[in-house]
Each structure stands twice: as structure tokens, then as C-alpha cells.
């Protein structure tokens, strides 16, 4: 009986080891990560607006339909990345992710940047070379980054009004 209990405890420990191996390897093996979906759907390095999910449409990335998302894929092996542009008065945020989904840097309209964005994205070697520049710097250990920009969408028309206008 004691021996059977020891085997059962051994089974539990072996099961925990199996679980550890699974959760360590699965993120590397998964082919439906956000990063791989972006690479598949947005091969260029230009900013791309993600389509706003409409009611009834599948929304695997769980995007908020009240918010607009723009994504830019950056490859830092060719040089530093930058994200220049004029931002709206309404709420916005900019974030830099690595391929594992870790947020390396993020900022919002409440951080006093103003409406003109001047975000430079560098790897550690480039950061050392540009340490004296007066720009926001996001650093990380990997060579590829994703910059995501999002802003609050303007108010949609009231449904009651649209129904009324169709009835007329």
C-alpha cells in the first residue's frame, strides 16, 4: 500500500514536470500568436490600420470596436525605427511590443508629449550610439518590434436616429 502511494506521488511529480515542459514549449510552437498574425497579414513595414470588428464578426485579437488600432512592424536590423506623426486630441496610446507580446514601452496622451509624436525605437547597440538624442527611446533585447498606435474613435451615429431616417 505504501509503495502504491509512493508511485502515485511519483506520478503527480512527473505530471507537474510534463506540465512545465508544455507551458515552456507551447509559446514557441504556437503559430497563432499576435506577432505571427501580424507578420502574415501585414508584410510591409508601413503603418496599417486594423479593421474595426463589426458585430457578429469573429474578433480573435479581442479588439475594442470603440478604438482604432494602427500597427507597424519594425525590423531593427536595418537601422533604428521611428514613429513620427500628428496625433488626435482624443485619447491615444502608443506601445512597442516584442514578438513575445511583452510591452517594452508605452505612452499615452496624458504623458505631456503633445500632439506631435517623435518616437525612436533602437536596439541596445543603437541606443548607445544615440544616447545624446532628445527623443523617447525604447530598448529591448530582440531585433524585431511591433509598434501599435490606438486612438478613441469618433462617436458613431445613434442607432435610434438611423432607424428613424430609414423609416422616413
Amino acid at each position, binding site marked *: 500500500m505504501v509503495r502504491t502511494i509512493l508511485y502515485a506521488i511519483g*506520478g503527480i511529480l*512527473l505530471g*507537474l514536470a510534463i506540465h512545465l515542459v508544455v*507551458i515552456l514549449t507551447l509559446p514557441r510552437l504556437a503559430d497563432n500568436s499576435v506577432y505571427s498574425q501580424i507578420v502574415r497579414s501585414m508584410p510591409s513595414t508601413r503603418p496599417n490600420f486594423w479593421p474595426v470588428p463589426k458585430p457578429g464578426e469573429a*474578433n480573435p485579437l479581442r479588439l475594442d470596436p470603440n478604438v482604432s488600432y494602427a500597427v507597424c512592424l519594425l525590423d531593427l536590423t536595418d537601422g533604428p525605427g521611428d514613429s513620427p506623426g500628428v496625433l488626435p486630441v482624443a485619447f491615444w496610446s*502608443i506601445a512597442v511590443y516584442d514578438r513575445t*507580446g511583452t510591452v517594452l514601452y*508605452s505612452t499615452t496622451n496624458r504623458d505631456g508629449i503633445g500632439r506631435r509624436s517623435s518616437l525612436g525605437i533602437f536596439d541596445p547597440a543603437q541606443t548607445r550610439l544615440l544616447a545624446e538624442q532628445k527623443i523617447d527611446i525604447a530598448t529591448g533585447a530582440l531585433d524585431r518590434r511591433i509598434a501599435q498606435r490606438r486612438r478613441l474613435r469618433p462617436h458613431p451615429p445613434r442607432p435610434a436616429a438611423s432607424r428613424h431616417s430609414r423609416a422616413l
Partner: protein
Amino acid sequence: MRFLLNLFLMLVIALAVGFGLSWYALTDGRLFGAYQSGPWTAWTQSGSPRRPLHARLPHPERRAAARPGRGLQLVATTDSDGQRLDRACRYRIDGRTPTATFWTLIPVAVNGASIARADGRPGFHSARVARANDGSLQLYVSKRLSPLNWLEITGDGPFSLVLSLYDTVFFSGVGSNETSLPSIIREGC
């Protein structure tokens, strides 16, 4: 013979524990590092460089929770009594929301699609809801006409409520977090 039986028992337990825990972590996993308050669940460490191993697994709610800029997403799949949210019922979301620049509340199906009426709003928005004098909210989600703030939903089957907070101080230690999340009350089916 007894050795073989014990070995078989050990292997069965190992496979059940190993793959059972992994399946749970991939499909639900709320016991592994999720914040829970009443019916609301949040993956507060998603996107953090120091997040635990389970928070790195490919999971829709965990990847959605990686909201930068002090954002946070809370998901409810049950009402405050623990019953699964069902589109055949009327629900009242009652109380206050945490301090945030703005928030949205979207009813979604299992695949993340909004189940709001196609020609209507996708969900509630903090700037477009009526409040009581004390700032509290009463939001209704149902297929049938409801008073005050009402969002019409479509279809049948279970659904989830997704509360997205933008630029929030939730979890920053400012104010009382536990009392600021609204309750979800089933009013009838």
C-alpha cells in the same frame, strides 16, 4: 505484476496531471495568476516582462489584456451569483466603475465577436451613459427592451461581458478597488 500495475498507475496519474493542468491553463487558467473580483477576471500581468510562465501562454483573454498605457481589460462570463451569462436573460450591471479616462463594456460571444445589434452601438461607452446623481450606473443588457441604459443583444447561447478601462488607476493603490467593480444581476429569462 504488482510493479507493472504501480508503474501503469504512475503513468496514468502523470499524464492526467500534466496534460490536464496544461489544458486548463490554455482554456481557462484563472487559478494561474488571474485577478478575480466577483464575476470579473483580469490578467493584470499580461504584457509585463516579469509575467509568470502561465501568462505567456497563447490565450485570447490574456493577449487582449496586454493593454498598454495603463489600460486593463476585465472579463465576466458569469453573473454575480456564479451563473453563466445567457443571451436569453436580462442582466443589470449595477454599481460603479474604477477611475479611468474612459471605459467600454462590450458583450461578446465565445469567438470574441460583439453580439450587439448589427446597426447599433457595439457596447456601452462611459461618455454615453446616463448616471444617477451619486455617479452610480445601471446598465441593462438584454434582447428585450429595458429601461435606462439599454444595449440590445442578438443570438442565443452563452456570452461574456468585457470591461475595458483606459488610462486607469486600478491596481495602482489609489482608492478602493474591490468596491469599484459593478455587480452583474440576472433579472429574468
